[in-house]
């Protein structure tokens, strides 16, 4: 079986995000970019399936700017087999919306005919949590979202889902779309010998036009603002000082 894993290049989870002065979005120039953490989990899960002998080939797809090639290389160094880069934007600030991404992925799926698509449950930059569901709908496939456990058995998969207040286990027929939640696995580091090997792994370069998909935005960002800053605490030297301060603040 072939597995398709879409991977998105996003601002690194640990980078302090700065809103652009004009409020049009977040400043992405000169900041550390990494693979979306949930996509990393999806790649890891695909590799584990391959190591278990249930999968023959892992194909990565990234849709975005040209630099997303680095994100594909990272996945190849983890153990995926080849990549497809769909260059859909020139400006690093431009985000491709979930529906456009899902439409492109649907075309890739038609071409590649994977038995399973594993993808992150959401991208940490726009937090849309929509692409996987949209892809399943476009394909008319089963979907198993928020997976914390995945077992593939013949032509079906058993998936444990993280739902409000507990876990739900479902069985879906393949082909299906599974979206990865945080607890599915802990992704491995890319090994340096594999990075050397990954340089030779093929990456196909495409454009949205190749798939006949229009990626122009349908949403308009009206405003982006920083979350309110928490006021710094203060360390007091004694109980008396604390009481005085609380009185001054009119709390007691």
């Amino acid at each position, binding site marked *: 079986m072939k597995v398709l894993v879409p991977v998105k290049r996003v601002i690194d*989870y*640990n980078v302090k995000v700065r809103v652009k002065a004009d409020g049009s979005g977040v400043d992405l120039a*000169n900041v*550390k970019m990494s693979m979306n953490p949930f996509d990393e989990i999806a790649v890891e899960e695909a590799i584990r399936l391959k190591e278990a002998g249930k999968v023959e080939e892992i194909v990565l797809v990234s849709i975005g700017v040209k630099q997303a090639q680095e994100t594909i290389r990272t996945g190849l160094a983890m153990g995926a087999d080849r990549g497809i880069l769909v260059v859909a934007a020139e400006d690093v600030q431009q985000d491709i919306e979930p529906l456009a991404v899902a439409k492109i992925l649907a075309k890739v799926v038609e071409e590649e005919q994977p038995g399973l698509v594993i993808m992150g449950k959401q991208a940490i930059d726009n937090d849309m949590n929509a692409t996987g569901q949209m892809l399943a709908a476009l394909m008319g496939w089963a979907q198993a979202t928020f997976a914390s456990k995945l077992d593939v058995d013949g032509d079906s998969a058993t998936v444990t889902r993280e739902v409000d207040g507990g876990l739900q286990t479902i069985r879906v027929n393949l082909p299906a779309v599974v979206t990865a939640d945080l607890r599915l696995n802990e992704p491995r*580091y*890319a*090994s*340096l010998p594999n990075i*050397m090997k990954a340089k030779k792994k093929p990456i196909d370069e495409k454009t949205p036009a190749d798939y006949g998909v229009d990626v122009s935005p349908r949403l308009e960002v009206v405003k982006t603002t920083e979350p309110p800053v928490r006021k710094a605490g203060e360390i007091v030297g*004694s109980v008396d000082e604390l009481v005085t301060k609380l009185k001054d603040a009119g709390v007691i």
Partner: protein
Amino acid sequence: MTTPPLNPADDAFAARLRAAGLPEDAFRPVEPRYLEERRGLLQGRAGLVVAPRVTEEVATVIRAANTARVGVVPYGGGTGLVGGQVCADGPAPLVLSLERMGAIRGVWPEENVLVAEAGAVLAEVQAAAEAVDRLFPLSLASEGTARIGGTLATNAGGVNVLRYGNARELCLGIEAVLPDGSVMHGLKRLRKDNTGYDLRGLLVGAEGTLGVITAAALRLFPRPAREGTALMVVASPRAALELLALAGARVGPGLNAFELISGQGMGFLAETGCTARVPFTDLPDWAVLIDLGLGPGDDPEAALADLFEAGAAAGLVSDGVIAHSEAQRAGLWAMREQIPEANKRVGAIGSHDISLPLSAIPDFLVVAGEAVARLGPYRVNAFGHLGDGNLHYNVFPPEGRTKSDFPGAREIVARTVHDIVAGFDGSFSAEHGVGRFKVDDLARYGDPARLAVMRAIKAALDPQGIMNPGAVLG
């Protein structure tokens, strides 16, 4: 020294401090935390604990102590590893804690200077620098507790010495209260100031024996725009050194850290249930953690991959992993940073903070390894700041036994290791200092002329011997 014995910091002395104007809130209860040594090797004593709020109050305390001949132990975060902040013998001293002098007095981003009081916690100083988009590069596993005064008094090192230097090199000027109670105003924010003896350099590393550091002007740096971390399996310590040279040639000053990790250390992490994940199924004998900090247009991950490729071609490296997110960088560093904790859980017979000329390290490891093996069935975890020639050479009981099964071994092991270090022209204390634990080592290995100068300096500045009695020179 033939100074008369000191007096205890008793109630009468407390009364003198009050009479001299030390406010009531400066008096602290004598809590156990001021008297503990983290490995339980010493039980400290104190007649009084005071925590002044301003430099003038420190001066009041020291002046009174000098007059009354009462010993003073300066106390920062209490994380020192050589017993410098814990006085176990003699008349109960006064512990002078800097915990209430934690202000950042000023930040000059355009000058790359920050002035902090001695009680500022290292992590807070790092955060204050980050707030103005600068880096204060001093970084130790104890940074959440250690205070600036303590790191300067011990001339602390840590993981970034290779690139930025140790605490002394990060300090432009200090303000200190000298043993007679006078205040030395030396908070110069100058990089060039050739106006006589280097008293800043003298008080830094003096471990509280020449005065109390109350504030310091510290150097800041631009933050590296792009950072990357890799862990590479090296064939041997010699291969690690060759890789270091290769890295220096390729990335030059961009090398933040080059840390040696032994297979034994990785084994300890798993054995003691530490959370850090070792990314190899078969533990290698040796690995190095390499951290790069480069400019905005650079790609540290590519630089590390290229370094690995060159190292592999030269037969120096065989395997390795690279962090491709900040979370993974933290994960690799956690491995390095949790090794001291793992060591603590296993329980070392002896830990040795040694430094050696870089090229002597491979031979030292062989010679010392053989000598330790002759002493008993011990396990050795040698790790640390290879780029600085600084190894933490720690000796442990075999699996299933504890250090209490080997009474008396600590001293014999230390003597053996330190003698070999001296034979290679190394140092028995690279970054932790002398404190009280290494007084005998200093007497044994120190150059006689140098020791004589140190004693003369001590006698000139502190004729009564009140400052941190028993530390460094004994």
